[in-house]
């Protein structure tokens, strides 16, 4: 489901958080590492729930992690 209208800053945020690995983030938010990779590449748009869990893992809001370019 490629959707370039939603961009994420997950990659940047991981590095700002002690170079958190994709595996570690996936474990914290309860998804697979492949989903994190897909999110970082902008190929997959997460559900609201996953978006909130990712934002919470970085202690940020959803808007800080995801950007809508519609």
């Amino acid at each position, binding site marked *: *489901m*490629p959707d370039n209208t939603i961009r994420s800053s997950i990659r940047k945020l991981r590095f700002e958080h002690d170079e958190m690995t994709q595996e570690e983030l996936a474990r914290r938010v309860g998804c*697979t590492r*492949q*989903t994190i990779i897909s999110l970082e590449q902008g*190929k*997959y748009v997460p559900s609201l*729930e*996953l978006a909130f869990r990712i934002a919470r893992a970085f202690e940020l809001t959803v808007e800080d992690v995801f950007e809508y370019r519609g």
Partner: protein
Amino acid sequence: MAPLQKRALISLVLGLVWTALLVVLFIARGGVETFSSDATTRILLSALFVGMLLFTAFLGVPWKARSGRGVDVDERDIAILKRAPQVQLIAVMLTMAAWVIGLTEFYWEQGSMPITWPYLMMFSTLIASTLAQSLGVLIGYRRS
């Protein structure tokens, strides 16, 4: 590679090998004529066919993953699984169309066809459906 993606790939490869084995056995044992007249051939091929379906249903893309209760799947995997039937539908329609057109044209003059053919149509359509499920999952991973 995601766990479900790996299962789908293994399932597709083994399914293709299994299908090839079925076709080779079918031809080696005499084709439609023997299948129609020899119960042993029919039972042997049917057992292999059912074995393939059971493998695909329970080991290839597990039913737990389909219901979203598997431990190694997340929302993206489930979304991909839910779109895989689109590929299955196309595969089933193409298989049925090929059989119906082929058999109708071949037996046009006779006006009827041997009773064995519908049996083989069912075999091949179910095989196409199960293989297409794995293929649909793999396509889903490529796209998302």
